[in-house]
C-alpha cells in the first residue's frame, strides 16, 4: 500500500513505531499534491514550508520519546474559512483574497498542539454558501472519482483532498450538509458533531445557529480520533456546551446487536435517484443482518426543514456578513477607485466587487426576511417551524437509537449543471439540513457506488450521542470494503 493511502490510524501507528517518519509521510503527500492537484484543484493554498517544518518538529518529538497523540505528525488540511496563523483565510471570496489569519481558530490551535502537519487550505463555496464548491471565487474543484463531476460542497475542497490522497484528513464546516454532502459525493467519511460540541472560534461565520466544524476522513475510526482532538468547551465560543468529552473510539468495536435503527419514511420519497435508494436499502438490510432492529418511523415536518433553512440561514448570514464593509479589513473599492465619493459608496461598491452572486442573493433574501413588515411572516414563522422540526427528532429518539437515511438524493452531478438554478441546487441538501436545524450529530459513510460514483449513507443520533453514532457507522463500514476503494486520478 502506498503511504498516501494509509488511514490516520495506520499512519499514526507507523509513526509511533518509528517505521516511518512524519517527514517521509509529509513528502509523500506533497509529491502526491504535485501530481494530482492540477487535475483536482482541491487546495487554495498549499503550505509546503509550514508542513515540512511541522513534520520535522513532530519527528523530533518522537525521537525524544514524547509521542503524545495519534495526530502527531499527520498531514492535514483545513477548509479555507478557518483561521490558522501563517496562512491566508479567504473563505474563497474576493473580499478576503488577501486576508492573513490574524489569530488561530480554536480547532487549528488544538490540532497544532496535537502535532498536526498543516498541508494547506482547501477550496469551498464562497463563505460556505453552496453545494458544489463552484461558488468559489477562485477555482472549481473536481470530483476525484470523475473529473467532470462536482465534489459537492461547501467543503468540496476538503472532501476531494482526502479522496485524492492529498492529505490524511481534513476539517470542514457544516451549516446545512456542507461536510456530509461532499463526503457522500467523494466517497469519504464526513461527521457533523452536535451543535455546541466543537468550538467555532476563528471559523468565518455563515449562520451562527447552524454552523458546526467536523472532520472528513478515510475511515470512521479516523473521525473519532479527530473528534477526540477538537471537541470541548471553549471560553471563546459561548455556544460550546459544558458536556464532558468522551474517548470517541471507545465504543467503536462494540456490536450493534439489539440497537434500534429508525428509517424515516419521509426520506424515501420523490426526487431520490433509484440507484441511490437501492444502495441505501441494501445497506439497511445489512444493518439488520448485523443484529440491529429496523423500524420505519416518521418525521412529519421533514418537508419544511429546507424552507426553514433558507429563511434562517440567509437572515443570519446577512447579519454576519455585514462586517465586510471595505473599511476594517479585506477588499476595499478605495484601492481601485481613488475618487469614490462617500462612505455609503465605499460600502456598497466594495461589497459589489467583493461578493459573488450567491452571497449577494442570500444577503438580500436575509435582509428581506428580517425587514419590518416581513419579519413575522418569514423569520419568526421559520423559527417556530424550526421548533417543530426539532420536536420531531426529540420524539423519534424516544423510540429508536439512531436514524439511517441516504445522505443525498443523487450522486455527484456534473460541473456547471446547476449553476443557473439556485433553487434546484438547494434541493441537494434536502436530507442533511434537518440535523443542523435541530442541532443533532450526523455522519455520512460510503455505502456503495452508482455508475462509478460513491453513494453515502447518513446516520443521525440525539445530541451528544457521537459515540453511538460512530459505533454504528464503524460497524457498518467494517462489514463492507467500500472504504478501501480509492479514486484513480
Amino acid at each position, binding site marked *: 500500500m502506498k503511504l498516501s493511502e494509509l488511514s490516520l490510524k495506520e499512519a499514526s501507528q507507523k509513526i509511533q513505531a518509528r517505521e516511518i517518519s512524519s517527514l517521509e509521510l509529509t513528502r509523500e503527500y506533497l509529491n502526491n499534491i504535485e501530481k494530482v492537484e492540477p487535475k483536482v484543484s482541491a487546495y487554495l493554498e498549499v503550505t509546503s514550508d509550514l508542513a515540512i517544518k511541522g513534520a520535522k518538529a513532530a519527528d523530533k518529538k518522537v525521537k525524544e520519546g514524547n509521542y503524545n497523540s495519534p495526530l502527531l505528525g499527520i498531514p492535514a488540511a483545513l477548509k479555507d474559512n478557518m483561521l490558522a496563523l501563517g496562512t491566508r483565510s479567504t473563505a474563497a471570496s474576493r473580499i478576503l483574497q488577501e*486576508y*492573513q489569519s*490574524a*489569530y488561530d481558530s480554536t480547532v487549528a490551535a488544538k490540532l497544532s498542539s496535537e502535532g498536526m502537519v498543516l498541508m494547506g487550505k482547501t477550496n469551498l463555496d464562497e463563505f460556505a454558501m453552496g453545494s458544489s464548491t463552484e461558488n468559489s471565487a477562485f477555482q472549481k474543484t473536481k470530483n476525484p472519482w470523475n473529473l467532470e463531476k462536482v465534489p459537492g460542497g461547501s467543503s468540496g475542497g476538503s472532501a476531494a483532498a482526502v479522496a485524492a490522497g492529498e492529505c490524511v484528513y481534513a476539517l470542514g464546516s457544516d451549516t446545512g450538509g456542507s461536510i456530509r454532502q461532499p463526503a457522500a459525493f467523494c466517497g469519504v467519511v464526513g461527521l457533523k458533531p452536535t*451543535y*455546541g460540541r466543537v468550538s467555532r472560534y476563528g471559523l468565518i461565520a455563515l449562520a451562527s*445557529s447552524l454552523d458546526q466544524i467536523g472532520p472528513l476522513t478515510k475511515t470512521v475510526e479516523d473521525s473519532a480520533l479527530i473528534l477526540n482532538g477538537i471537541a470541548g468547551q471553549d*471560553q471563546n465560543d459561548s*455556544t460550546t*456546551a*459544558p458536556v464532558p468529552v468522551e474517548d470517541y473510539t471507545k465504543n467503536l468495536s462494540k456490536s450493534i446487536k439489539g440497537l434500534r435503527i429508525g428509517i424515516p419514511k419521509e426520506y424515501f420519497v420523490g426526487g431520490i435517484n433509484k440507484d441511490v435508494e437501492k444502495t441505501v436499502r441494501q445497506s439497511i438490510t445489512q444493518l439488520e443482518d448485523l443484529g440491529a432492529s429496523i423500524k420505519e418511523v416518521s418525521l412529519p*415536518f421533514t418537508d*419544511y426543514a429546507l*424552507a*426553514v433553512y*433558507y429563511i434562517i440561514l440567509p437572515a443570519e448570514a*446577512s447579519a454576519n456578513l*455585514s462586517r465586510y*464593509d*471595505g*473599511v*476594517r*479589513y*479585506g*477588499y*476595499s473599492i*478605495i*484601492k481601485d477607485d481613488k475618487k*469614490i*465619493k*462617500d*462612505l455609503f459608496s*465605499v*460600502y*456598497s*461598491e466594495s*461589497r*459589489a466587487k467583493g*461578493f459573488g452572486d450567491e452571497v*449577494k*442573493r442570500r*444577503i*438580500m*433574501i436575509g*435582509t*428581506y426576511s428580517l*425587514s419590518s413588515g416581513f419579519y413575522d411572516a*418569514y423569520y*419568526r*414563522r*421559520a*423559527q*417556530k*417551524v424550526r*421548533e*417543530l422540526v426539532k420536536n420531531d427528532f426529540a420524539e423519534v429518539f424516544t423510540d429508536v437509537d439512531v436514524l439511517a437515511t441516504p445522505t443525498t438524493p443523487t450522486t455527484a452531478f456534473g460541473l456547471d449543471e446547476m449553476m443557473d438554478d*439556485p*433553487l434546484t441546487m*438547494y434541493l441537494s441538501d434536502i436530507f442533511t439540513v434537518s440535523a443542523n436545524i435541530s*442541532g443533532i450529530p450526523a455522519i455520512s459513510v460510503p455505502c456503495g457506488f452508482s455508475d462509478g460514483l460513491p453513494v453515502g449513507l447518513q446516520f443521525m443520533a440525539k445530541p451528544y450521542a457521537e459515540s453511538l453514532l460512530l459505533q454504528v457507522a464503524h460497524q457498518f463500514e467494517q462489514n463492507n470494503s467500500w472504504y478501501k476503494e480509492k479514486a484513480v486520478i
Partner: protein
Amino acid sequence: MAITKEEVKHLAKLARIGLSKEEVDRFQKQITSILDYVDMLKKVTVEKGEKIVMSDVENILRDDVVKQSKNQEKLIEQAPDQKNGYIKVKTILKKNETI
C-alpha cells in the same frame, strides 16, 4: 410571492450592495423563485408565543479579568485605509453641520 425590481433595488440599498441593471433583473427572478419555495411555511399552523434559542445553554459568564488582547497594530494593519494607528473612513459630517 413576486418581488418587484424596485424592491430588489431597495433591498440592495439596505444591504449596501451595489447592483448593475443586469443583476437587478436576474436577482428579481431568482429571489422570487426562492420566496415562492419558502412560502410553503405559511401552510404550517404555529402556536403563539416565541422561542428563538438554539443552544440549551444560557448565560455563560466568565470572571471579569484584565488580560492581553490581540495585537492592535497587527489588526489595524489589515485595514485598507489608516492613519496614525486609526482606521480611516470617508468624511461623514459636512463642514458647519451640527448633530
